[in-house]
């Protein structure tokens, strides 16, 4: 594959291709990786908001790559490609450029969606735009009849107890106060996040293994 707007280098493309291959061979339908303002979503069979056979990548233009790994101080001597290199200043750049689909329809492809995708403004990845509690201009607002469950701390969020296990909850699920709706891993300590109320899960704003900040909305529950 050739370079797209200089956004990715050859290694990155290779990594993404490998991710696509892995997802296609796995039993999972949906994979989202987010780091340092770069977000990669791969879906198949219509899973998530990625659509069938789509790869969505959000980030800024100032992406670091293997060639630019030497930092200003000259001390960072290299990088081992262990993932897709991401920008550290997506929020500052905030460029929003759509570069569309390049994959053949029906197969895995790549679309670059260069927009700020910071962790403080999580995307409403579940639920429809009409659902109350979903983000409006990136803000998730409290509304009568709905309770927003928020992250108690920094950490990595898990929607399931272990890989392969069923998720704790899903949109449309009826839950009771005290039910575990996710796990937060902070400094090797796991905290179960429980629902503060009885109700129906109307939207989930985060995905498995997303990094969270304190107060970040996780899901909306219709009382």
């Amino acid at each position, binding site marked *: 594959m050739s370079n797209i707007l200089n956004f990715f280098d050859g290694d990155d493309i290779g990594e993404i291709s490998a991710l696509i291959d892995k997802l296609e061979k796995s039993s999972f339908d949906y994979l989202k990786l987010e*780091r340092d303002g770069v977000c990669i979503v791969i879906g198949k069979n219509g899973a998530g908001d990625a659509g069938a056979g789509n790869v969505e990548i959000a980030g800024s233009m100032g992406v670091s790559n293997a060639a630019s790994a030497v930092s200003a101080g000259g*001390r*960072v*001597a290299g990088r*081992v490609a*262990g993932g897709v290199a991401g920008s550290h200043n997506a929020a500052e750049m905030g460029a929003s450029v759509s570069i569309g689909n390049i994959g053949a329809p029906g197969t895995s492809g790549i679309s670059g969606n260069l927009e700020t995708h910071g962790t403080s403004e999580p995307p409403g990845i579940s639920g429809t735009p009409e659902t109350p509690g979903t983000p409006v201009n990136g803000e998730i607002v409290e509304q009568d009849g709905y309770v927003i469950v928020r992250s108690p*701390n*920094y950490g*990595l969020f898990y929607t399931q107890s272990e890989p392969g296990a069923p998720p704790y909850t899903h949109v449309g699920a009826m839950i009771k106060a005290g039910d575990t709706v996710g796990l937060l891993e902070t400094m*090797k300590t796991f905290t179960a996040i429980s629902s503060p109320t009885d109700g129906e899960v109307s939207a989930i704003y985060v995905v498995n293994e997303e990094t969270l900040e304190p107060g970040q909305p996780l899901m909306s529950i219709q009382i």
Partner: protein
Amino acid sequence: MKIYSMIIANRGEIAVRIIRTCRVLGIETILAASEADEESMAARLADRTIIIGPPPTSTYLNVDLMVQAALEMRAQALHPGYGFLSERAELAQACADKGIIFVGPKAEHIEKMGNKLAARMIAIECGVPVVPGSEKIDSYEHARRVADAIGFPVILKAAAGGGGRGMKIVTAEDATSMKQLYDEASAEAAAAFGDGTLYIEKYITHARHIEVQILGDKNGEAVHLGERDCSTQRRHQKLIEEAGAPNISDALRNDICDAAVRLVKSISYENAGTVEFVYDIDEEKYYFLEMNTRIQVEHPVTEMVTGIDIVREQINIASGGGLPFAQGDISFRGHAFECRINAEDPFAGFRPTPGVITGWEMPQGPGVRVDTHCYHGYKVPFFYDSLIAKIIVHGDDREHARRRMVAALDEIVVDGISTTAPFLSEVLTASDFIDGRVHTRILDGLMG
């Protein structure tokens, strides 16, 4: 062969600690860091830094990545630190295969001592006492037979790991629900270590954790650097360690240290290691627990009382040098404490508190050492453990050292995040601690 360059396959304070000794020895240092640690103190102190992957801990747990980084950076040696890959035989073996000097024991020794059941067999073979129990249990019925034979309480433990996971205490009152506890422990062990195999031991109600620092070289020589007491724990995590152990007789001290040396000599163990014992306060007996085949978090207290730089000795042994001293050359002076300062809120159930450090003042003065990777403005990441600093003090005797520690902790100012320092001050001034009546549940009475 003299080592001239070394890659540090670790992070945090231990990476800084290792780099410091390398700088003194004139060894070029290369830090293998995740993206989260690109701006860390270790990265600033190392001669070079290679970013090996994204922030999650999996980056520091990837053997292939570490070896690839070592080769790419042409590092002659690799120091694994503690935790992460330090006790993974595959890494030691991969280094050996690629001609990289592994600053640690041989893969076969990591493998042997890493398996608690195999380690227990070795201890039995060289006459080191082990806790009454079975080597391995293959069913609930088997566990029950052993429990009835050695008497309750008993403890079920995962054969493949530690840290409290896969561990269940079964008291006489729990005997009727032992089947359920057995199933839970096995499931936990399988989930945490990929191996549900359990073993069963007599549970020691009033226990102390006493361990012995040892060094062994390629000539089969081994010495001990004395014992440490690490009984002051919270949920199996050590909080305060000291050298030497208080309130034990010299005869017992010598016995334990000799047992440790006997054990490591029996397998011709090379490099630094720690032999851990549990001491039964009621019966005044000690038993072999396990061996850690790496440098320990609490190694500085031993350095303070012996004056020996353990990392330097590790490097000397790894480069093929013989031990520069015999047992008789090692002397012990005074007493030392270490307090682990964690980014946790002791007033909110020890909730982890990652975040930006907006104020940072560490204690100084005679007999005070601070091992840390943190600084003013550092953002403590949430990906890794909560240890942010180790305060180590030395004193003429235990009470002198304890008072120094209390004074040192009082100097600490950390803003922006909560730390366990206030809690540790309380422990240090509790009457049981002052009198050296330490045991593994000493904190239960202090936690309210």
